[in-house]
Each structure stands twice: as structure tokens, then as C-alpha cells.
């Protein structure tokens, strides 16, 4: 039986005690090495769920287990370190540091996580390999992130999430700014690299048309607790 990379049980999160639930999930499991397409309308709590998976927020009720570790059991600093070691993120706005080069942006996780640096082997060589595999040629690798096109920034963000082979890659609507053809190409590239790294992928989008690329899909609808 494949071990679970992510397991969520009876999850409830509210921003304030008197507010409506921002995330409410009876259960969700993502097996290691698989890809999950997570979709839902705006306001369904997708971003909040990502913050919960990243250990930045803690649930009011229920538990979130990532790679066998219950995040709520870890103190804040350990959760930060856990996130750095095991999770790679790609965001809708790509979130590159504009004053760093593409290569330096990709190397950032290795600077914060010794484990990611070790797993990358030679981080610089690995960063270059990833960028090249994502169709970013050497001259572009040294350019400041601010000078890159949207498509190039997106691939740099993907390389940054993948470096050091994190067990889980979480992508938050990374293709929303692309046309359909480019969306498909990017997702295929991302999934291929994730598969090579044996990473589990959680891909968040409101565009259900993309679901076909993934092993499983899950709708986040803001369901009420049982």
C-alpha cells in the first residue's frame, strides 16, 4: 500500500472564533508520488488550505498529517523548518525576488534548508539543470527575475519548488495567466519533473478543464462539518 503524503481528518479552520469556517474538510488523502487536482470557486478556502498544509496556520479542529508528521505537534520554528525541508511552493504570482537572478531565486530553498541542499547534490548545477529542463537557456538564468517574461518567471518558480526534490510540491493557480496551450505544456513539464523527483503534487486551480492532467481531483466547496 502506498503511504500517504498528506492526510487530513475532520479539519476546521476559522479566522476568528465568531467567523464562518474558512476551511472545512471531513477528510482528504494524497498518496506519495501522486498528483492531486484541487479545485473550487473563489472563497472556497483554497489559499487558506495551502497555508494550513504549509504549517503557517494551525487548524481549530482536526489534524493535518504531512509525510507522517502531524503539523500541529510541531512548534512554530520546527514547522518552518519542516516546510523548508519537505515542501516546494509555486504561486499564482510566482513570487520571485525581483532583485535576484533566476538562478539565485531557484537556489533560495537550498539556502534555508540543508536537507534540500544535500538532496540537490551540487545545488548550482542542479538549479541550472532544472532551469534548462524547463526550457530556460543559460543567458536567461543569470538575468534578474524582474526582467523575465511571465512564462519564464513561471518556470523559474517551478524550478525553485522542485530543487532538492521536496516530497511535496504545492502549486497555487500557477497557470492562470497563460493561454490554454501554454497551460498544458507547463503542467506536463511540471508533472514530468515532479515524477522524476518522486514528488507528490497538489495543484490548485479554479479551472476544472485542467483536471485531466492529474491522478485525482478534489473539489473544495466549503462543506459544513458533520
Amino acid at each position: 500500500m502506498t503511504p500517504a503524503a498528506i492526510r487530513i481528518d475532520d479539519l476546521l479552520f476559522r479566522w476568528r472564533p465568531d467567523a464562518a469556517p474558512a476551511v472545512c474538510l471531513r477528510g482528504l488523502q494524497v498518496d506519495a508520488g501522486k498528483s492531486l487536482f484541487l479545485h473550487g470557486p473563489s472563497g472556497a478556502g483554497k489559499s487558506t488550505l495551502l497555508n494550513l498544509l504549509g504549517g503557517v496556520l494551525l487548524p481549530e479542529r482536526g489534524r493535518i498529517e504531512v509525510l507522517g508528521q502531524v503539523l500541529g505537534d510541531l512548534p512554530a520554528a520546527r514547522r518552518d523548518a519542516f516546510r523548508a525541508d519537505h515542501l516546494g511552493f509555486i504561486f499564482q504570482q510566482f513570487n520571485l525576488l525581483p532583485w535576484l537572478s533566476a538562478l539565485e531565486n531557484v537556489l533560495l530553498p537550498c539556502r534555508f534548508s540543508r536537507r534540500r541542499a544535500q538532496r540537490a547534490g551540487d545545488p548550482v548545477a542542479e538549479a541550472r539543470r532544472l532551469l534548462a529542463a524547463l526550457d530556460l537557456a543559460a543567458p536567461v538564468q543569470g538575468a534578474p527575475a524582474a526582467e523575465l517574461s511571465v512564462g519564464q518567471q513561471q518556470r523559474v518558480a517551478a524550478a525553485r519548488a522542485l530543487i532538492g526534490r521536496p516530497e511535496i510540491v504545492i502549486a497555487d493557480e500557477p497557470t492562470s495567466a497563460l493561454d490554454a496551450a501554454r497551460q498544458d505544456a507547463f503542467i506536463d513539464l511540471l508533472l514530468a519533473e515532479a515524477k522524476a523527483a518522486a514528488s507528490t503534487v497538489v495543484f490548485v486551480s479554479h479551472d476544472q478543464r485542467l483536471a485531466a492532467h492529474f491522478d485525482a481531483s478534489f473539489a473544495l466547496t466549503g462543506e459544513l462539518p458533520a
Partner: protein
Amino acid sequence: MSALPRLALASAWNRRLSLGLTLLAVMLAATLLLSVERIREAARDSFAQSVSGSDLIVGARTSPVQLVLYSVFRLGEATNNLDWASYQKIAADPAIAWSVPLSLGDSHRGYPVLGTTADYFTHFRYGDRQPLRLADGVVFAGIFDAVLGAEVAQRLGYRVGDQITLSHGDGGLPGMAHDDKPFTVVGILAPTGTPVDRTVHVGLAAIEAIHLDWIGGAPVPGFNIGAEVVQKFDLTPKSITAFLVGLHQRAEVFRIQRRINQFADEPLLAVMPGVALDQLWQTVGVVERALQAVSWLVLAVGLAGLMATMLAGLDQRRREMAILRSIGAGRRHILGLLLLESGLVSLLGCLLGLAAVSLFAAVGGDLLAAFGLAALPLAVSVGEMKLLGAVLVCGLSVGVLPAWRAYRLSLADGLIPRS
């Protein structure tokens, strides 16, 4: 986490214009603070060293501060003179190695005139027991010879051989000039950074000579004794303003001081210059504290600028902080990043301020001399190190509010920034 300083530097470089201006403000504030401190110390040193090598200053009984003010700084007037006979009686004490009489009360174009003896140039010391030195000419020998302090000669453009006339009192009243008895400049002293530079020195006999035809502080109408005949008169002074005393053995100072203070013939006061100068410095210390307060205010403005720049930049940096959080930076790293930045700006501001002050100390001697101040010391004093430490602590403290706000923002934003 070693990645943090590198990122802080890279991030700061990205905002170099606004941070540079803030750095400039902090640097100027630190420069001002250190300059005031160094000038204050130099002024105090120059003040404390206005007279050295004299064991006692003696005058008619008054307050010690007033005695020092008029006898050393030529400020104000003596409430009373002391008899020449008293002076001679005291000076004859075998414990006294030397004594120099001082007679004040006249002026030349606003500069005080000091009547004294040639011994003054032998025994008077200033600074670190430095003797007076003639830059040009010789010490007075004739009755109407004058030796000028460096500033008097420079400001009024006098050279050896020039003629000057003295005025009675501060020269503010008409008809009070001693213009019938002109003096010849025979010597000009080298600069000392003390009130000596602002003094016209003449012989005691000259003071008597110019007042031969004066009674009660005014010329006698219709009566004039020409300069050429004054030598026919007894020019021994009847009274003097004060006198300096040097002892054979310093251990005798309290005994001699007590003896003078209990002098039976007339009420006198003997003060130890160092003690009186300290008292006087404390009196003028309010100015010193006001100066310091102003420079601290300037520093506060500089640091407020640092805080404003950091707070204003926070909204633009929310994405940066969210990115750092997503790659594993914790909340304490966000706090650390902001504190590192404010600490770095304060440290750099301090170092640049120190460099600016040192440069000023190295090349600004002439400018300070124009204000009557001695050159600033090049070395950093313990007081300055404490000030720099205080600036650093203040700078770090100023970073706390932006850091706290950044921390709150990063908590609210999590991994997905809202800007």
C-alpha cells in the same frame, strides 16, 4: 541562518536610494552628535588648561568663580583691588617660589589690557604646562611697550613696531582714551587657544603711568602729564587686581591658601585654579547640556526617518516576506530581517559619522582656531564609544516597530501575500 544577512543585503541594495537617504540622515545625526561631544571635550580641555603651573590665584575677597573669571578669562570686573603692600608681604613668604601681579581694567579696541611684569612670560603656563612663546619681537622692557596676544595681532592686523593706544575701562565711553600715551608693539605671542590670545600685555608701570593724570577713574580736566615725563614719577602700583603664585612644594598649597584667606591686613581670597575652573565649568555646563540636547534631537529626527522609511517600505515588501516564509523563513527570521536592516543602517551611519568627524578633526583645525578652539583630538574617546553604542541601541530600537508590523503582516499574509 547565514542566508538571512545575504538576503537582507540584497534586499537593502534593491532599495538603495531610499535607504541611502536614510543612511545619510543617520550619518549626519551621528556626525553632529560626535562633533558636539568632541568639541565639548576640546572646549573643556582648553578651558581647564587656560592656566596651568600656577598653584594659587589670589585676589580681593569675592567668589572663587568670579576671581577666575576676571583674572584668567578677563571677563567682568574685580569688585575690589588688593594693596601692593599686601602683595609684597605675601610674595615674600619663603614657601612661594614666584609670583606674578596682574592689573586689569583697561582695554584696546575691545581686547582687555593686562598690566604685569616680565615674569609673567617666564612663569605663566597653559595647556600641558606649556610656556608662552613669542612669535615675533621681544618681551616689553620700556614703559610704553606692549606685547600682543596672537588673536589681537591677527584680527587687528598689528605688527611689531605699530603704535596702539589704550582706553580706560572697556572703552565704551567717549573721552576715556589714554591716547596721549601711545604704546609700541614690541612682541607678538604665538597662539595658545587660551584667553592670552585675546590680551594686550603691558608693564605694571605703564598702567600707573597712563593713570597719573587720572583721579577716580576719570581724567583730571586741564591736567596732563606727558608721556616723556612719566619716568620722573614713582610708578610703583598702589594696588593690583590679582596675582598668580607658584610654590616651591605643592604640598604647601593648603597652608599658603589658608594663610592668604586669613590675611589680617585686608580680606583676600586664594583659589586653586583647577578647582575653581571645575566650578566655573559646572556653571557654564548648562550650555554644554543644551548643545548635547540639540544633537540628540537631530539624532531622533534621523532615526525617525529610518523608521518612516522602513514602515513606508513594508507594504511593498509583503510579497518578499511571504516568499521568504514559503521557502522556510520563520516569523523570527522576518523580525530578524527588519532588525538587521535597522541595525545595519545605524552601524553604517555611526561608522560614517565617525569617519566624518575624524576627517574634520584632521583638516578642520583652522576653522576651529577661528572660534578660539584648540584642534580636535583624532583619537576616539570612551565617551564617544558610549555615544556610538547608544546610537546603535536607538537604531535597533527604532527597527522594532517596523519589525513588529512586518511580523504581524507576515502572520496575516501567510504564504500568499495580499499586495
